[in-house]
């Protein structure tokens, strides 16, 4: 088995709001191996972004609070680090790519300085050296005239170009893990294809692990080695990417896969998951998917299912917990 790079155990991140406690991430356990791409799939409000922000402790606290759990990166506990130790990890060993590129780049600072800042800050590199490295990197992420780009401001670039700049910033220190939160959601398909290819190339070149958060199952199928599916703050299923798509086990994963239109299918009626995603303040008792599930039984309404293991995959559903007890 390959070495785990990041291990998250029983993580709980709650928000303490005026309307009550919001269990945005509720007792989740997963790991990412070295040089692996882990896809994190789920609909809005399922806690996938909060999970990412919890790892780097970029959450606004309060109202957010990491209630309990453990996050080990290369064996070191991130939750026990102080702010200056964390700053060394951020951008150095773990970097992040966000969906809203315009808000993650500083609008009044030229591109060049935003890229080199990481180098001069973390590595005490001189301005000139850093600039040479930045130009090299811009060429790798597909800019035809990298020197000219260095002097431009973010608003002068298109969405796809900005996202490529973000990838350059995220990879400049050869991090061990990149957390990409919906990196291509705001982009057009042809630009998305460009950006995904660059991410894959960078990964192959540097051997970086990627935690790829997305709601697009197509992107996951293409990029990920392993997938976790989240629903209402919980991980409902974890499996290798081919297993998720060929033999999904959790009813939510099954329905989700059936409900997406594909260009391979003929014009047909889509499968539908009835109802809506529950609000975080109103998560149902028991299995959180049960009000929308076709297979819901009495036990689903009262007790939360624990993960059931099948070889290298696991699923949290009463359908399988019982099956295992019987066999």
């Amino acid at each position, binding site marked *: 088995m390959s070495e785990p790079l990041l291990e998250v155990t029983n993580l709980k991140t709650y928000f303490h709001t005026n309307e009550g406690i919001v269990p945005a991430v509720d007792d989740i356990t997963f790991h990412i191996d070295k040089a692996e791409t882990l896809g994190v799939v789920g609909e809005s409000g399922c806690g996938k972004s909060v999970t990412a922000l919890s790892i780097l402790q970029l959450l606004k606290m309060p109202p957010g609070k990491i209630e309990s759990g453990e996050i080990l990166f290369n064996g070191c506990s991130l939750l026990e680090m102080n702010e200056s130790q964390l700053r060394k990890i951020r951008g150095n060993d773990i970097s992040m790519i966000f969906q809203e590129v315009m808000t993650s780049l500083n609008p009044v600072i030229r591109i060049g300085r935003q890229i080199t800042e990481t180098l001069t800050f973390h590595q005490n590199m001189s301005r000139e050296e850093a600039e040479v490295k930045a130009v090299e990197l811009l060429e790798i992420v597909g800019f035809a005239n990298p020197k000219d780009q260095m002097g431009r401001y973010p608003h002068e670039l298109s*969405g796809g170009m900005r996202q490529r700049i973000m990838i350059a910033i995220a990879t400049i220190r050869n991090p061990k893990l990149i957390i990409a939160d919906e990196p291509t959601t705001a982009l057009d398909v042809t630009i998305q*294809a460009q950006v995904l290819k660059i991410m894959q190339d960078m990964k192959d070149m540097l051997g970086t692990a990627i935690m790829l958060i997305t709601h697009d*199952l*197509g992107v996951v199928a*293409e990029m990920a080695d392993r997938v976790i599916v989240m629903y209402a703050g919980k991980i409902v299923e974890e499996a290798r990417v081919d297993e998720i*798509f060929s033999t999904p086990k959790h009813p939510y994963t099954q329905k989700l896969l059936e409900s997406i*239109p*594909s260009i391979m299918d003929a014009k047909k009626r889509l499968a*539908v998951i009835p109802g809506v995603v529950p609000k975080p303040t109103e998560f149902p008792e028991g299995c959180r998917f049960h009000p929308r599930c076709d297979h819901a039984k009495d036990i689903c309404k009262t007790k939360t299912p624990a993960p059931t293991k099948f070889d290298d995959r696991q699923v949290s559903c009463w359908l399988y917990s019982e099956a295992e007890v019987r066999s």
Partner: protein
Amino acid sequence: MNINKNDNKEVLLKVNELKKYFPIQGGVTLQVVDNLKAVDGVSFYVNKGETLGIVGESGCGKSTLGRVILRLLDKTSGEVQFKNNDIYQLTYKELRKIRRSMQIIFQDPLAALHPRMTVKGIIGEPLKLHGIAKGPEKDKKIEELVNLVGLDKYHLSKYPHEFSGGQQQRVGIARALSLTPELIVCDEPVSALDVSIQSQIINLLKDLQEEFDMAYIFIAHDLSVVKNISDRVAIMYLGKIVEIAEVEKFFRDSKHPYTEALISAIPMPDPQFKKERIILKGDVPSPVNIPKGCRFNPRCRYRIDICMEQEPDLKVISDNHYVACHLVS
């Protein structure tokens, strides 16, 4: 271009060489220095009861096109014929009358619904304005409409912000339906919704179409969604239609290099599926400085000399299949 129809369905909407330019003002005197050519000579037709998908990337002019068709924005030139009436020749009064038959659904349902009106008010407003129903009759009609779109009677007294995105979109659909239109322009109606909610709305739109025999112009950037709902698909690039075909032919036998790249760029929800991906170079050019010749030529991998000189016309290549490319004949 002349669209020669060779099926015998009844045409509902016919658009001919439609253009919409947005002037760019500059200098101290604010004279027009340039034009943003959002829609730059578009022709197509929509049959009664069919769905035409219009696909393109951001900034290609697809939403502007939807609005110019309904005369929500004024055209620059060209013709829009709805049931043999030229929309732009009508007086305000006549236009209002014909607007009953043409409605629109927007991408952001919350922004499209009045925040301080209840659902009952929102759906009842068109009925009141067009003098279709009053009093108890109106209430009955409103109830029918909410049931049609899968909402409940008790939702009527609620405000838009109390609903989820999918439900808000249902309210928007009910409002569009209230005047029993013959054409609905759906401008990215599902792109703001979660995957599991998307399929609910797509199925609802299909059911309603079957029941009321309406035509849809379904504007979207997601080809998979468009494939699922459309009878025919048109691809737009920088203000022009580059290809129109029936949906089956479209995905089997598309001809334009841009269509080819667009289809190949879609990530497939199937890890086993390996395909050759065509990565287009660069970004979509600005609609202010449209490249000379074929507007796709700077990104096209099959470019020949003529592409940089002459703009290709949209030509028929087989039944109901139109392509604008020098390499296709």
